[in-house]
């Protein structure tokens, strides 16, 4: 069974491994302790103490607070509230719905027709980091990406209680 040291996993997170190294990791069986090592590295990098239960994106985590509640939290410490609610409802939203706004990031003719599809960008209200982008038809409700069953994940995949 493969096993990687902390440094390798850190390089993996930061995208600093060479392609052959990444390829080898992808083609091998999964290292059994990857999740714990990975989460530990993320935990070491944030300034707050709440325990990370599951990473939710590049800058978002579901954390367990001292009072037992589980909330979505940003790198910077901003809390979006209970993980069973859509965190996007608490985020700053920027909608690209015109040709001009699309062409700030795409060459002409290379983007979707804003009459049909819009881009919605979600930002952290405190640190202003871009957290997520979604492409939807106009007027489509905000997408709730992912509500994990934390208990089942810990019990059935990690073999322990949360």
């Amino acid at each position, binding site marked *: *069974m493969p096993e990687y040291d902390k440094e390798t996993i850190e390089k993996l997170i930061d995208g600093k491994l060479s*392609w052959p190294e990444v*390829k080898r990791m*992808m083609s091998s*069986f999964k290292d*059994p302790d990857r999740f714990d090592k990975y989460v530990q590295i993320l935990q070491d990098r944030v300034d707050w103490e709440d325990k990370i239960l599951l990473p939710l994106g590049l800058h978002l985590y579901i954390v367990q607070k001292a009072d037992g509640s589980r909330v979505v939290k940003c790198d910077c410490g901003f809390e979006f509230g209970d993980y069973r609610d859509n965190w996007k409802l608490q985020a700053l939203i920027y909608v690209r719905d015109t040709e001009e706004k699309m062409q700030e990031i795409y060459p002409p003719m290379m983007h979707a027709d804003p009459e049909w599809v819009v881009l919605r960008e979600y930002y952290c209200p405190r640190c202003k980091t871009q957290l997520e982008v979604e492409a939807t038809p106009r007027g489509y409700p905000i997408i709730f990406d992912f509500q994990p069953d934390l208990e089942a994940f810990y019990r059935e995949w990690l073999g322990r209680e949360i």
Partner: protein
Amino acid sequence: MQSGREPRIIAIDAGGTMTDTFIIDRNGEFVVGKAQTTPEDESLGFMNSSKDALSYWGMDVKEAFPAIVTGIYSGTTIINRLLQRKGRKVGVIVSKGMEDYFRLERGEQTYLGYSYSDRLHVCTHQHNPPLVPRNLVKGVPERIDCFGDVAIPLQKEEAKKAILELLDEGVEAVCVNLLFSYRNPTHELQIKEMAQELIRERGLDVEVYTSSEYYPMRCDFPRANTLVIEAAYAEPSRVHMRNIDARVKEEGGKFDLRIMASHGGTISLEAKDLARTLISGPIGGVIGARWLMDKLDIENAFCTDIGGTSFDLAIITSKEYDIKPYPDIARTLLAIPLVETDSVGAGTGSFIRINPTSGRIEIGPDSAGYLIGTSWPEGGVDTPTINDCDVALGLINPDYFLGGEIKLDKERAIAEIERQIAKPLGIGVYEAASGVVELFEETLKNEVFARILGKGYAPLNYTLLSYGGGGPLHVGGISEKMGFEDVLVPTWAAGFSAFGCACSDFEYRFDASLDLPILPGLPDDAKEGLVAMINAKCASLRERLITEFSKSGVDESKISFTVYLRMQYLGQLRDLEVNTGKEWISGAKDLNEAIDAFEELYSKVYARAARSPELGHLITHVIMAGKTDVEKPNIPLEPLSGEDPPSEAAKGTRKVYRKGQWLEASLYEMGLLKAGNTIKGLSIIESPSTTFVVPPGASAYLNEHLIFHLKTQ
């Protein structure tokens, strides 16, 4: 020192790490030498390896080289250059709109050479560094259609602009690769002419390559790849090969070094298209097998080569091997003919692991290769391999691996198998090891079976030929209950691939796409017109053959020509290669014979009932091969002695674990057995380079040519 030997043939296989030299004398006896490969100047490794080989005969190079009449080289220079993208700066001109060839890679090149599971997992797919950077690929408006007619005339001003831009970039060669140029090369040749003129005007030294002159084949992307490899990597490698040839001459050699090419023949190092020597490693064994079939009068053979990393298979039917017109190597599609071999990622160095999801044993696809396994602690391998299981079970003698050069640690192998395989499975260590070996042999057996049955043949009509370092060790398990006509194991199995190179012809082969439809029911007088078109192609290919041979001083009268046609039913996708056995297609009668031969071949490869002559036929490619006689090895011939092996060959006994029980195996030294001896199983015949296991109930007869016939139950 005078040894009385007369070396005649030398074959050198410069691999990634080691250069093997095979020297054969007049009697068919041979020695194998090894030395480290020296990539900067391969002539050093070549000389060291030759010296090593000759030292076994107490000869030196100056004494031996003048007697040698045939020298064959198979190296890695071009492929190393390709892998490292170290070559000349090449500019490419393509039909406008096709400029992104080398970045798109037809998708396929992002996963070529991957294991099955990696191919399924798209996240592992990755683009290669482009063969030619995008800024050196220029599109020119023009179009030849699939019938060879000009659909859009060449825009000469645009072409001139493209050439000048490339020259401004300082390219050292220009490649021209247009759509359908194999049907009509006019545009390519016009661009070539313009480019040469502009180059002359500027006083530059830049060569121009056109695909229609080098590789007039359909499939424009593999053709573009091959042309670029020719210009960027093969041409600069010629200097290396000339160096080696010069060293040979310095040492008194009077022979011209020839190079192993992918189609199974050898060509001169002055050959115009050198890229066809890019792949030669895995085919040596097939050529050797083909030679052996001639000597022993075998009609059909199945070749199996078990090496450290892979299991290579090839099928030879009616003494003809298959040719793949568009093979790939180093994740690059090519348009050169390659002797068809299949490779399965299972060799004696393959890693064994327990799949954590299914809890089952998995073999490979990666391997320890020359690092053997955990039984060789110096190799630094931590995962057990098939070798380790063979050592643990008592099949391999840990003190006699490579003649004792490498000492294996049996205890460590057992401990690692116990820890990583047996314990997780909850079974005993020997049970686990023998289970792994059984699974390994079963896997290979299935591969063999699938390929023979898949082609519509039966093992009963085939002779199984086993070679490679691990072949003789597992051939018993593989051939058991398969019902092969015969099972042959040459005593020189470990060096069979290098030996095979020495057996190859001096042969050029040129392929050209034709795409000529023959409609059903076409009357013979109409066929005469088609024959003229075929012969026009043949004539130009024949010209190329004569030119190439003349570089080596071979006169046209000494060349025997053969026309091959690749044919398919109109509207179907797979073509088959038909050997017409003729020098020319001299009329409708010859063409009808070729069609009949195709029908016959089709019914063998697929099914008689699947033949569909009512669809008509399509001649996809015309191939012209030319060969000339060269010295080839003699088969060893020993006087036959009695059935019982001489007492000095017996080396005692050893305990071997097999299918749940410990058995007593008799041990023999391979080199001391005499022709005519029969060894009964369970026996293990050891030599410095390989181990041959004769399973219980089986027997191995060593014939007068020093080849074992293995008879299993």
